[in-house]
Protein backbone atom coordinates (compact mmCIF):
# COMPACT_ATOMS: atom_id res chain seq x y z
CA UNK A 1 0.00 0.00 0.00
CA UNK A 2 2.68 2.44 1.04
CA UNK A 3 4.76 1.85 -2.07
CA UNK A 4 1.78 2.92 -4.22
CA UNK A 5 1.92 6.41 -2.87
CA UNK A 6 5.69 6.83 -3.00
CA UNK A 7 6.14 6.34 -6.72
CA UNK A 8 7.30 9.81 -7.78
CA UNK A 9 10.81 10.98 -8.62
CA UNK A 10 11.15 12.86 -5.34
CA UNK A 11 11.30 9.57 -3.41
CA UNK A 12 15.08 9.40 -3.99
CA UNK A 13 15.46 12.90 -2.57
CA UNK A 14 13.23 12.05 0.38
CA UNK A 15 15.22 8.89 1.09
CA UNK A 16 18.50 10.82 0.88
CA UNK A 17 17.20 13.59 3.17
CA UNK A 18 15.81 11.15 5.76
CA UNK A 19 19.15 9.26 5.88
CA UNK A 20 21.06 12.52 6.12
CA UNK A 21 18.89 13.75 8.99
CA UNK A 22 19.06 10.50 10.95
CA UNK A 23 22.86 10.24 10.51
CA UNK A 24 23.21 13.89 11.56
CA UNK A 25 21.11 13.58 14.72
CA UNK A 26 22.57 10.22 15.82
CA UNK A 27 26.15 11.40 15.27
CA UNK A 28 25.49 14.63 17.18
CA UNK A 29 23.75 12.67 19.98
CA UNK A 30 26.83 10.43 20.40
CA UNK A 31 29.25 13.40 20.50
CA UNK A 32 27.05 15.32 22.95
CA UNK A 33 26.62 12.27 25.21
CA UNK A 34 30.41 11.75 25.29
CA UNK A 35 30.82 15.46 26.05
CA UNK A 36 28.34 15.29 28.90
CA UNK A 37 30.01 12.19 30.38
CA UNK A 38 33.47 13.80 30.19
CA UNK A 39 32.01 16.97 31.72
CA UNK A 40 30.83 14.95 34.72
CA UNK A 41 34.31 13.43 35.16
CA UNK A 42 35.99 16.84 34.81
CA UNK A 43 33.72 18.92 37.02
CA UNK A 44 32.26 16.19 39.32
CA UNK A 45 28.73 17.55 38.73
CA UNK A 46 26.28 18.37 35.93
CA UNK A 47 25.42 21.91 36.96
CA UNK A 48 24.70 24.61 34.39
CA UNK A 49 27.68 26.95 34.44
CA UNK A 50 27.77 30.70 33.89
CA UNK A 51 31.54 30.57 33.42
CA UNK A 52 33.29 32.23 30.43
CA UNK A 53 34.64 28.82 29.27
CA UNK A 54 31.15 27.46 28.35
CA UNK A 55 30.02 30.48 26.31
CA UNK A 56 30.51 30.60 22.54
CA UNK A 57 31.77 33.92 21.22
CA UNK A 58 32.74 33.91 17.56
CA UNK A 59 32.31 36.20 14.60
CA UNK A 60 29.92 33.83 12.80
CA UNK A 61 29.07 30.12 12.41
CA UNK A 62 31.76 29.36 9.84
CA UNK A 63 34.55 30.99 11.86
CA UNK A 64 33.24 29.05 14.88
CA UNK A 65 33.58 25.76 12.96
CA UNK A 66 37.08 26.64 11.72
CA UNK A 67 38.46 27.65 15.15
CA UNK A 68 36.93 24.54 16.75
CA UNK A 69 38.45 22.20 14.15
CA UNK A 70 41.82 23.94 14.57
CA UNK A 71 41.54 23.25 18.30
CA UNK A 72 41.84 26.93 19.22
CA UNK A 73 40.18 28.29 22.38
CA UNK A 74 39.16 24.82 23.63
CA UNK A 75 41.42 23.22 26.24
CA UNK A 76 38.91 20.86 27.88
CA UNK A 77 37.94 17.62 26.05
CA UNK A 78 34.38 17.70 27.48
CA UNK A 79 33.82 21.17 26.01
CA UNK A 80 35.37 20.02 22.72
CA UNK A 81 32.96 17.06 22.35
CA UNK A 82 29.94 19.18 23.35
CA UNK A 83 31.00 21.76 20.75
CA UNK A 84 31.52 19.16 18.02
CA UNK A 85 28.09 17.67 18.76
CA UNK A 86 26.45 21.06 18.42
CA UNK A 87 28.32 21.85 15.20
CA UNK A 88 27.09 18.52 13.74
CA UNK A 89 23.52 19.27 14.82
CA UNK A 90 23.52 22.84 13.52
CA UNK A 91 25.15 21.79 10.22
CA UNK A 92 22.51 19.09 9.51
CA UNK A 93 19.74 21.39 8.10
CA UNK A 94 22.38 23.33 6.14
CA UNK A 95 23.73 20.14 4.52
CA UNK A 96 20.11 19.14 3.85
CA UNK A 97 19.62 22.29 1.73
CA UNK A 98 22.91 21.62 -0.13
CA UNK A 99 21.75 18.03 -0.82
CA UNK A 100 18.47 19.34 -2.29
CA UNK A 101 20.34 21.76 -4.58
CA UNK A 102 22.60 18.94 -5.83
CA UNK A 103 19.58 16.64 -6.35
CA UNK A 104 17.59 19.15 -8.41
CA UNK A 105 20.71 20.06 -10.44
CA UNK A 106 21.25 16.33 -11.13
CA UNK A 107 17.59 15.93 -12.11
CA UNK A 108 17.81 19.09 -14.27
CA UNK A 109 14.71 20.42 -12.50
CA UNK A 110 15.39 24.13 -13.08
CA UNK A 111 12.31 25.31 -11.21
CA UNK A 112 13.27 23.71 -7.90
CA UNK A 113 17.01 24.16 -8.51
CA UNK A 114 16.49 27.95 -8.53
CA UNK A 115 14.20 27.75 -5.53
CA UNK A 116 16.59 25.70 -3.37
CA UNK A 117 19.62 27.67 -4.60
CA UNK A 118 17.89 30.86 -3.46
CA UNK A 119 17.35 29.36 0.02
CA UNK A 120 20.99 28.17 0.16
CA UNK A 121 22.29 31.65 -0.74
CA UNK A 122 20.06 33.36 1.84
CA UNK A 123 21.11 30.85 4.50
CA UNK A 124 24.83 31.13 3.67
CA UNK A 125 24.66 34.92 3.76
CA UNK A 126 22.88 34.89 7.14
CA UNK A 127 25.44 32.43 8.57
CA UNK A 128 28.35 34.50 7.24
CA UNK A 129 27.23 38.04 8.02
CA UNK A 130 26.68 37.96 11.78
Amino acid at each position, binding site marked *: MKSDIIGSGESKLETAISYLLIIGVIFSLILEAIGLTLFYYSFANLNILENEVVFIREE*NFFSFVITTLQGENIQNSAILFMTLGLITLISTPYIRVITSVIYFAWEKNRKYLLLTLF*VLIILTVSLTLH
Partner: protein
Amino acid sequence: MLDMVTLLLISIIVGFIGALTGLGGASILIPILVFLGIPVKEAIASSMVAIIATSSGAASSFVRERITNVKVAMYLEMFTSVGAIIGATITTIVAPIFLYFFFAAFLLTSFIKFKDSISRSYVSPKKQDKLSRWLELQGSYFDKAKNQVIEYKVNHALLGGLGMFIAGLAAGMLGIGAGAFKVTVQENVLKMPSKVASATSDFIIGMTALAGVSVYFSSGLLNLTLMTPMAIGATIGGLVGGRVLNKLHGKVLRMLFLTVTFLIVVQMLYKGIMSI
Protein backbone atom coordinates in the same frame (compact mmCIF):
# COMPACT_ATOMS: atom_id res chain seq x y z
CA MET B 1 19.08 25.37 40.71
CA LEU B 2 18.49 23.78 37.32
CA ASP B 3 20.99 21.05 36.39
CA MET B 4 21.69 19.39 33.04
CA VAL B 5 19.85 16.13 33.83
CA THR B 6 16.62 17.99 34.70
CA LEU B 7 16.98 20.16 31.59
CA LEU B 8 17.54 17.06 29.44
CA LEU B 9 14.34 15.45 30.78
CA ILE B 10 12.31 18.65 30.27
CA SER B 11 13.68 18.91 26.72
CA ILE B 12 12.55 15.34 25.89
CA ILE B 13 8.95 16.29 26.71
CA VAL B 14 9.18 19.63 24.89
CA GLY B 15 10.77 17.97 21.83
CA PHE B 16 8.04 15.34 21.79
CA ILE B 17 5.22 17.93 21.93
CA GLY B 18 7.07 20.13 19.42
CA ALA B 19 7.38 17.24 16.96
CA LEU B 20 3.68 16.31 17.20
CA THR B 21 2.39 19.86 16.81
CA GLY B 22 5.00 21.27 14.40
CA LEU B 23 5.66 24.12 16.82
CA GLY B 24 9.38 23.58 17.47
CA GLY B 25 8.89 23.94 21.21
CA ALA B 26 10.81 27.14 22.01
CA SER B 27 7.60 28.86 23.13
CA ILE B 28 7.22 26.14 25.80
CA LEU B 29 10.91 25.85 26.70
CA ILE B 30 11.78 29.56 27.10
CA PRO B 31 9.22 30.34 29.87
CA ILE B 32 10.27 27.17 31.74
CA LEU B 33 13.96 28.13 31.55
CA VAL B 34 13.26 31.70 32.67
CA PHE B 35 11.10 30.39 35.53
CA LEU B 36 14.00 28.14 36.61
CA GLY B 37 16.39 31.10 36.77
CA ILE B 38 18.07 31.21 33.35
CA PRO B 39 18.51 34.78 31.99
CA VAL B 40 15.87 35.41 29.31
CA LYS B 41 18.27 36.33 26.46
CA GLU B 42 20.36 33.23 27.13
CA ALA B 43 17.18 31.10 27.15
CA ILE B 44 16.02 32.50 23.78
CA ALA B 45 19.45 32.07 22.14
CA SER B 46 20.02 28.52 23.41
CA SER B 47 16.48 27.33 22.65
CA MET B 48 17.18 27.86 18.91
CA VAL B 49 19.38 24.77 19.14
CA ALA B 50 16.51 22.81 20.72
CA ILE B 51 14.31 23.75 17.72
CA ILE B 52 16.95 22.46 15.28
CA ALA B 53 17.22 19.23 17.31
CA THR B 54 13.44 18.67 17.42
CA SER B 55 13.12 19.50 13.73
CA SER B 56 15.89 17.17 12.52
CA GLY B 57 14.89 14.33 14.87
CA ALA B 58 11.21 14.44 13.88
CA ALA B 59 11.76 15.19 10.19
CA SER B 60 13.97 12.12 9.74
CA SER B 61 10.83 9.98 10.23
CA PHE B 62 8.31 12.31 8.61
CA VAL B 63 10.30 12.57 5.37
CA ARG B 64 10.85 8.81 5.18
CA GLU B 65 7.10 8.19 5.65
CA ARG B 66 6.30 10.92 3.08
CA ILE B 67 4.21 12.88 5.60
CA THR B 68 6.41 15.93 5.04
CA ASN B 69 5.77 17.48 1.64
CA VAL B 70 9.34 18.34 0.64
CA LYS B 71 8.36 20.50 -2.35
CA VAL B 72 5.91 22.56 -0.29
CA ALA B 73 8.60 22.93 2.39
CA MET B 74 11.20 24.13 -0.11
CA TYR B 75 8.81 26.62 -1.66
CA LEU B 76 7.79 28.01 1.75
CA GLU B 77 11.37 28.13 3.07
CA MET B 78 12.09 30.81 0.49
CA PHE B 79 9.58 33.13 2.14
CA THR B 80 10.39 32.32 5.79
CA SER B 81 14.14 32.79 5.29
CA VAL B 82 13.73 36.20 3.61
CA GLY B 83 11.18 37.20 6.27
CA ALA B 84 13.51 36.10 9.09
CA ILE B 85 16.43 38.14 7.79
CA ILE B 86 14.30 41.27 7.21
CA GLY B 87 12.69 40.75 10.63
CA ALA B 88 16.06 40.55 12.38
CA THR B 89 17.20 43.68 10.52
CA ILE B 90 14.18 45.89 11.22
CA THR B 91 13.82 44.96 14.90
CA THR B 92 15.29 48.31 15.82
CA ILE B 93 13.05 50.24 13.39
CA VAL B 94 9.59 48.77 14.02
CA ALA B 95 8.21 48.32 17.54
CA PRO B 96 7.54 44.57 18.07
CA ILE B 97 4.40 45.44 20.04
CA PHE B 98 2.35 45.47 16.81
CA LEU B 99 3.63 42.04 15.91
CA TYR B 100 2.72 40.58 19.32
CA PHE B 101 -0.92 41.61 18.85
CA PHE B 102 -1.00 40.70 15.17
CA PHE B 103 0.52 37.31 15.93
CA ALA B 104 -1.96 36.67 18.77
CA ALA B 105 -4.92 37.76 16.61
CA PHE B 106 -3.86 35.51 13.74
CA LEU B 107 -3.40 32.50 16.00
CA LEU B 108 -6.86 33.09 17.44
CA THR B 109 -8.24 32.30 13.97
CA SER B 110 -7.31 28.67 14.72
CA PHE B 111 -10.17 28.68 17.26
CA ILE B 112 -12.84 29.75 14.73
CA LYS B 113 -15.39 26.93 14.48
CA PHE B 114 -13.54 25.25 17.35
CA LYS B 115 -15.87 22.23 17.57
CA ASP B 116 -15.90 21.70 13.81
CA SER B 117 -12.14 21.95 13.57
CA ILE B 118 -11.74 19.18 16.17
CA SER B 119 -14.23 16.76 14.66
CA ARG B 120 -14.05 17.48 10.91
CA SER B 121 -12.30 15.14 8.50
CA TYR B 122 -9.88 16.54 5.95
CA VAL B 123 -11.37 17.43 2.57
CA SER B 124 -8.88 18.27 -0.18
CA PRO B 125 -9.66 21.25 -2.47
CA LYS B 126 -10.96 19.93 -5.80
CA LYS B 127 -9.18 22.62 -7.83
CA GLN B 128 -5.76 24.17 -7.54
CA ASP B 129 -4.70 27.68 -8.52
CA LYS B 130 -2.20 27.98 -11.41
CA LEU B 131 0.87 28.68 -9.25
CA SER B 132 0.22 25.71 -6.93
CA ARG B 133 -0.25 23.47 -9.96
CA TRP B 134 2.89 24.81 -11.66
CA LEU B 135 4.89 24.17 -8.47
CA GLU B 136 3.44 20.61 -8.29
CA LEU B 137 2.23 21.22 -4.74
CA GLN B 138 0.21 18.10 -4.10
CA GLY B 139 0.84 14.73 -2.52
CA SER B 140 -0.41 11.78 -0.56
CA TYR B 141 0.56 9.84 2.54
CA PHE B 142 -0.53 6.69 4.30
CA ASP B 143 -2.41 7.61 7.49
CA LYS B 144 -1.74 4.81 10.00
CA ALA B 145 -4.49 5.94 12.39
CA LYS B 146 -7.13 5.85 9.63
CA ASN B 147 -5.45 3.00 7.75
CA GLN B 148 -5.94 4.76 4.44
CA VAL B 149 -4.11 6.85 1.86
CA ILE B 150 -4.90 10.55 2.15
CA GLU B 151 -4.50 12.51 -1.07
CA TYR B 152 -4.38 16.28 -1.04
CA LYS B 153 -3.93 19.30 -3.28
CA VAL B 154 -2.33 22.47 -1.95
CA ASN B 155 -4.11 25.72 -2.86
CA HIS B 156 -3.42 29.49 -2.69
CA ALA B 157 0.38 29.16 -2.99
CA LEU B 158 0.99 32.90 -3.29
CA LEU B 159 -1.11 33.82 -0.27
CA GLY B 160 0.51 30.97 1.69
CA GLY B 161 3.94 32.31 0.69
CA LEU B 162 2.95 35.75 1.99
CA GLY B 163 1.79 34.15 5.26
CA MET B 164 5.14 32.39 5.57
CA PHE B 165 6.96 35.66 4.92
CA ILE B 166 5.08 37.19 7.88
CA ALA B 167 5.88 34.08 9.97
CA GLY B 168 9.56 34.58 9.12
CA LEU B 169 9.26 38.29 9.94
CA ALA B 170 7.77 37.41 13.34
CA ALA B 171 10.52 34.83 13.93
CA GLY B 172 13.25 37.32 13.11
CA MET B 173 11.73 40.20 15.09
CA LEU B 174 10.58 38.35 18.18
CA GLY B 175 13.29 35.67 18.40
CA ILE B 176 10.82 32.80 18.12
CA GLY B 177 10.38 29.90 15.69
CA ALA B 178 6.81 30.95 14.81
CA GLY B 179 5.82 27.30 14.28
CA ALA B 180 2.20 27.92 15.37
CA PHE B 181 1.90 30.59 12.69
CA LYS B 182 3.37 28.27 10.06
CA VAL B 183 1.03 25.38 10.89
CA THR B 184 -1.99 27.72 10.88
CA VAL B 185 -1.04 29.13 7.45
CA GLN B 186 -0.57 25.63 6.03
CA GLU B 187 -3.91 24.37 7.37
CA ASN B 188 -6.11 27.43 6.87
CA VAL B 189 -4.59 29.07 3.78
CA LEU B 190 -2.83 26.28 1.88
CA LYS B 191 -5.52 23.74 2.87
CA MET B 192 -3.11 20.98 3.87
CA PRO B 193 -4.07 18.04 6.15
CA SER B 194 -3.13 18.55 9.85
CA LYS B 195 -0.45 15.84 9.92
CA VAL B 196 1.19 17.09 6.72
CA ALA B 197 1.08 20.67 8.05
CA SER B 198 2.76 19.63 11.35
CA ALA B 199 5.37 17.47 9.62
CA THR B 200 6.16 20.10 6.96
CA SER B 201 6.39 22.80 9.65
CA ASP B 202 8.83 20.61 11.62
CA PHE B 203 10.94 20.37 8.48
CA ILE B 204 10.91 24.14 7.78
CA ILE B 205 11.38 25.29 11.36
CA GLY B 206 14.87 23.78 11.65
CA MET B 207 16.04 25.95 8.79
CA THR B 208 14.42 29.09 10.23
CA ALA B 209 16.08 28.35 13.60
CA LEU B 210 19.41 27.85 11.83
CA ALA B 211 19.13 31.34 10.34
CA GLY B 212 18.06 32.56 13.80
CA VAL B 213 20.92 30.97 15.75
CA SER B 214 23.49 32.60 13.46
CA VAL B 215 22.63 35.98 15.03
CA TYR B 216 23.78 34.74 18.43
CA PHE B 217 27.31 33.49 17.64
CA SER B 218 28.84 36.89 18.24
CA SER B 219 26.55 37.77 21.14
CA GLY B 220 28.18 35.55 23.78
CA LEU B 221 24.75 34.23 24.81
CA LEU B 222 25.17 30.63 23.58
CA ASN B 223 25.88 28.53 26.68
CA LEU B 224 27.19 25.00 25.99
CA THR B 225 25.97 23.66 29.34
CA LEU B 226 22.45 24.79 28.40
CA MET B 227 22.51 23.79 24.74
CA THR B 228 23.98 20.29 25.09
CA PRO B 229 21.30 18.79 27.40
CA MET B 230 18.61 20.67 25.44
CA ALA B 231 19.94 19.27 22.16
CA ILE B 232 20.11 15.68 23.49
CA GLY B 233 16.62 15.88 25.05
CA ALA B 234 14.94 17.61 22.11
CA THR B 235 16.52 15.17 19.64
CA ILE B 236 15.22 12.17 21.61
CA GLY B 237 11.77 13.83 21.97
CA GLY B 238 11.75 14.67 18.26
CA LEU B 239 12.75 11.14 17.23
CA VAL B 240 10.00 9.60 19.38
CA GLY B 241 7.41 12.19 18.27
CA GLY B 242 8.34 11.54 14.66
CA ARG B 243 7.48 7.86 15.09
CA VAL B 244 4.24 8.49 17.01
CA LEU B 245 2.52 11.27 14.98
CA ASN B 246 1.20 9.12 12.17
CA LYS B 247 -0.36 6.64 14.62
CA LEU B 248 -2.39 9.32 16.42
CA HIS B 249 -5.87 10.42 15.40
CA GLY B 250 -6.24 13.92 13.95
CA LYS B 251 -8.59 14.85 16.82
CA VAL B 252 -5.87 14.23 19.45
CA LEU B 253 -3.28 16.21 17.48
CA ARG B 254 -5.73 19.06 16.90
CA MET B 255 -6.52 19.25 20.66
CA LEU B 256 -2.79 19.26 21.48
CA PHE B 257 -2.09 21.94 18.87
CA LEU B 258 -4.93 24.18 20.09
CA THR B 259 -3.88 23.79 23.75
CA VAL B 260 -0.29 24.82 23.04
CA THR B 261 -1.46 27.57 20.65
CA PHE B 262 -3.74 28.96 23.38
CA LEU B 263 -0.74 29.17 25.74
CA ILE B 264 1.27 30.97 23.04
CA VAL B 265 -1.60 33.46 22.46
CA VAL B 266 -1.66 34.23 26.21
CA GLN B 267 2.14 34.72 26.17
CA MET B 268 1.94 37.02 23.13
CA LEU B 269 -0.85 39.15 24.62
CA TYR B 270 1.04 39.39 27.94
CA LYS B 271 4.25 40.49 26.20
CA GLY B 272 2.31 42.95 24.03
CA ILE B 273 0.52 44.51 27.01
CA MET B 274 3.74 44.63 29.06
CA SER B 275 5.56 46.48 26.27
CA ILE B 276 2.91 49.25 26.00
